[in-house]
């Protein structure tokens, strides 16, 4: 089942742009998220529920947008200048009402918005002011604010407009564009659906959503200078942080757009550099203001996990974190359920004696020696320690500040374990050999398919979703199976084209 959910702030922003042809802008007063996302993806329904003050914030946000309307009305609604009146209002509703509700308006819905216009006129407002009131009203309606589908009972196929909404929000994080709405009546035809999915995936508008998938899956934050210790990294200013953020996005988008596969995602040595990132990697910078794709040292760098923004996100302000990095490998790349750390984890850690100038492995060994810690940390720590040669900003290093050498070798235990299955150990010499082996693990492909599923449907998967995840995974594992093909495969699953409420 896919629950009704409110648009995220990003989706609201994108949708306002699509709705009004980029002539009106969104409002910062639109309410953000509340609580914690279980999947890690920002579109989860409960994560976007409003609080007591939310209705008022939504009203203020709608007003902010509506206030911009009169100035843009000549371009948005030419009849406003020549023949203002109710026929012109209906023209507005035909275009912008349909876009906002993602389907033609019912007679009752049209009458409701027309009443708003009439109330405006009756109060002495001008045509453009009355239209602003219509927009104010429109933007607070659930048909615009919520992605909600009619209940299905046991199961039903979604209609074309429902498919258009699912497709558009999945791939562009916004309401459907006019081409998709025009095609909506035919989207129950799989070929038509695939054609539209392919079109949207190729569109630049999909970039933000695709980057969001990789960021939220990997836990890669949008870094700012405040995230890092300015004593340790005095050069890490706002421009540098922005370069690091952009470099990550360019990498993952390149993977999707240029036939990247699961293997290249995990093993590519590609990186994108501007002058800041060229300085970071110690390579020749491109022309000022330009970006270049370069190949990094394949003895050091391996795919998304060694992208600086990801390494810096999975780190403390001045020191890296083998726990955060290991947690990504086990929970997000292998989809293992490790549970929550106990409440007294930090307090317990404080009591563990450590040798002088401990290495990561010294700390890990001391933690794993504690029985109450070993259950999870024996699984987490080796994976994170393999990435220990990257500091808190993702810079390459071979020794600790104490001068002790860093040993990235280890054993990743019990990979593929689940109830009744012991799993197997992966022995590696460094991050390169670890990722090389993980790239070939069937569980990794299944896990990425699972993450695509969770991203698409904004919820955790259940046993009834096995077939859908299998289909997505098959697309990834197929000979030449690309990341893009896996995303497209999602739109062909029964889970995508059907709805069940049981």
């Amino acid at each position: 089942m896919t629950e009704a959910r409110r648009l995220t702030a990003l989706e609201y922003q994108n949708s306002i742009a699509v709705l009004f042809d980029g002539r009106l802008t969104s409002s910062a007063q639109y309410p953000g998220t509340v609580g914690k996302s279980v999947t890690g993806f920002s579109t989860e329904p409960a994560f976007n529920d409003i609080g007591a003050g939310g209705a008022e914030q939504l009203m203020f946000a709608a007003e902010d947008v509506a206030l911009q309307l009169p100035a843009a009305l000549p371009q948005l609604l030419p009849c406003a200048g020549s023949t203002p009146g109710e026929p012109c209002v209906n023209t507005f509703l035909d275009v912008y009402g349909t876009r906002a509700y993602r389907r033609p308006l019912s007679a009752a819905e049209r009458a409701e918005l027309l009443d708003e216009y009439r109330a405006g006129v009756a109060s002495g407002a001008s045509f453009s002011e009355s239209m602003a009131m219509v927009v104010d009203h429109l933007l607070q309606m659930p048909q615009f604010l919520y992605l909600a589908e009619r209940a299905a009972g046991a199961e039903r196929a979604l209609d074309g407009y429902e498919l258009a909404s699912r497709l558009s929000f999945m791939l562009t994080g916004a309401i459907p564009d006019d081409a998709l709405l025009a095609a909506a009546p035919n989207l129950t035809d799989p070929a038509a659906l695939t054609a539209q999915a392919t079109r949207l995936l190729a569109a630049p508008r999909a970039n933000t959503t695709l980057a969001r998938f990789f960021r939220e899956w990997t836990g890669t934050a949008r870094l700012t200078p405040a995230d890092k210790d300015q004593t340790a990294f005095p050069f890490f200013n706002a421009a540098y942080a922005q370069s690091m953020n952009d470099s990550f996005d360019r990498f993952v988008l390149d993977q999707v757009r240029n036939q990247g596969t699961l293997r290249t995602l995990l093993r590519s040595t590609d990186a994108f550099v501007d002058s800041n990132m060229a300085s970071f990697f110690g390579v020749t910078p491109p022309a000022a203001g330009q970006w270049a794709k370069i190949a990094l040292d394949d003895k050091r760098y391996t795919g998304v996990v060694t992208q600086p923004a990801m390494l810096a996100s999975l780190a403390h302000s001045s020191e890296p974190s083998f726990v955060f990095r290991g947690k990504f490998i086990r929970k997000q790349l292998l989809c293992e359920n490790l549970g929550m750390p106990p409440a007294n984890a930090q307090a317990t850690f404080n009591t563990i004696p450590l040798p002088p100038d401990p290495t990561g492995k010294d700390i890990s060994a001391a933690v794993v020696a504690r029985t109450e810690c070993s259950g999870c940390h024996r699984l987490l720590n080796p994976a994170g320690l393999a990435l220990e040669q990257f500091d808190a900003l993702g810079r390459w290093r071979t020794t600790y500040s104490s001068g002790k050498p860093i040993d990235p070798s280890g054993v990743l235990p019990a990979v593929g374990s689940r109830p009744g299955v012991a799993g197997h150990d992966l022995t590696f010499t460094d991050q390169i050999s670890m990722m090389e082996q993980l790239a070939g693990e069937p569980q990794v492909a299944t896990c990425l398919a699972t993450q695509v599923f969770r991203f698409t449907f904004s919820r955790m998967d259940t046993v009834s979703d096995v077939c859908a995840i299998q289909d997505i995974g098959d697309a990834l594992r197929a000979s030449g199976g690309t990341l893009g093909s896996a995303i497209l495969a999602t739109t062909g699953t029964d889970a995508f084209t059907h709805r069940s409420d049981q």
Partner: protein
Amino acid sequence: MSQRIDRRRFLVGSGGALLALPMLEAFAPRTAFAQTAAPPKRLVVVFHPHGRVVGPGSNENWSPRTTTGALPPVGTAPSPALAALAPINNEIVTLSNIDNIVRHTSGDIDGHASPSATCMTCVVPAGQTPKGPSIDYVAGLRLRASTAQKMALVIPGQAAPFANSVTENNVFLGPGGSPGNYQNIDPKQLIRDLFASVVVGPPPPPPPTPTLRDRLSARRGSILDAVAKGFTSFRAGLGSADQARLDQHAQFIRDTELRYATPPPPPPAASSCAPPSTSSVPNYDWPSFRKGEHDDVFAQTQIESLVQALACDVTRTASLFFWAGGDPGFVTEFAPSTSPYIAGNWHASVHGDGSPNDPTPASLTKAFGFYAKYFTKLIQRLAAVQDTDGSRMLDNTLVLWVSDLGYGSGHYCWNYPVVLAGLKSAFPKGQGRHVVGQVNSLGDLYAQVLRMLGGTDTAFGSTGTLSSAVGTASFNFYPQMGRPGLITKDTPLHFGALDL
């Protein structure tokens, strides 16, 4: 439509008396009684994260005494962590031995989430998810004069934005654990939101030509009504879970609509109603505020908005919320460029993680002193505002200062740091005391708060024992997370009245 305050129509009476009247009669003009009318009771909650100041190697330095007794004279620091309270020692009561018992029903599986979900609600959570309203919301429902007043405002006390984590969003809560009424973090926007419809003095002439903003504002009640109806028709075809989600949203719309659709609410209770001006407030310049570089100005501004929201009767329940998001730098508490929390991680330091940036216990105490400093300023400001009968607004306002944890160092949920102030008449044994009673729960404390405000409550939140509250005897908890020796499955959630 603006919310006009005409002191000549000053309406006397408690919230309960007003609510008992038919709506139109309740809002009918009455004789002016300014300066003589009995003022309403109000509640202010101050919240700070991480409990008592116990850092690496430091001893308890919060409690003023180990036994019940008088606090030191005004001007003498009651304890290292509360040193800033010295000017108001005679206005406060400090408490020890208050525990968060309900937290243990969560199984203690987390450090901050379940304490946050329970410390203000005392209701058994669903794992990390809160399931009940917080004390400010419950009190707010009772104290408000009409639905036209804003409910249980939560006003940010520091400039760092929320991190949207379970520990920040789950402290102040509405019905069923829904998010509380968190206010905009931009001080200018907060002033606009709280006071836009408040006008003091004679009504100005209507503007000759309403602007579009005026027209949109005037239509708010009608549009919200239409939108709420739209939710009703839209929900019809949805499944039950989706309907519940939209119903909650629609209820919030109806609550909001009441504020815009009803006649003008009662006039300000206090005679010193003076809405702050946005022009006197600095721009909210995120991200330069991220580490609290201007938290002194920010906190002072927010306190003034809070106090005036009470004075102008915009609300009768408001909270000042200091939170841990973004790891505040407490820059204003240290000499320029010397705060160890700019580069370091305050949260980790509280837990004593021994990282290279870990400041000293003295630094932690100094940083925590920020909260005491602004608590004192809040009390002093409430004391300076004249209430409707000429008394100090502080004397009609109960101020409750609590935290999410007892001892932040280990996520321990016993011996919470609690300070009460204001509403002198509710303290039979007087103020200027430290009270070390038997072990009490936060539920006991909040029930007593409701009694001090006029209720007859003997319990707050979930009742029974840890086992009975959960409904099964099979849950697990870590006794060491609570008071040593106290926590078993048979531990009651309430112990009785506090010695006030």
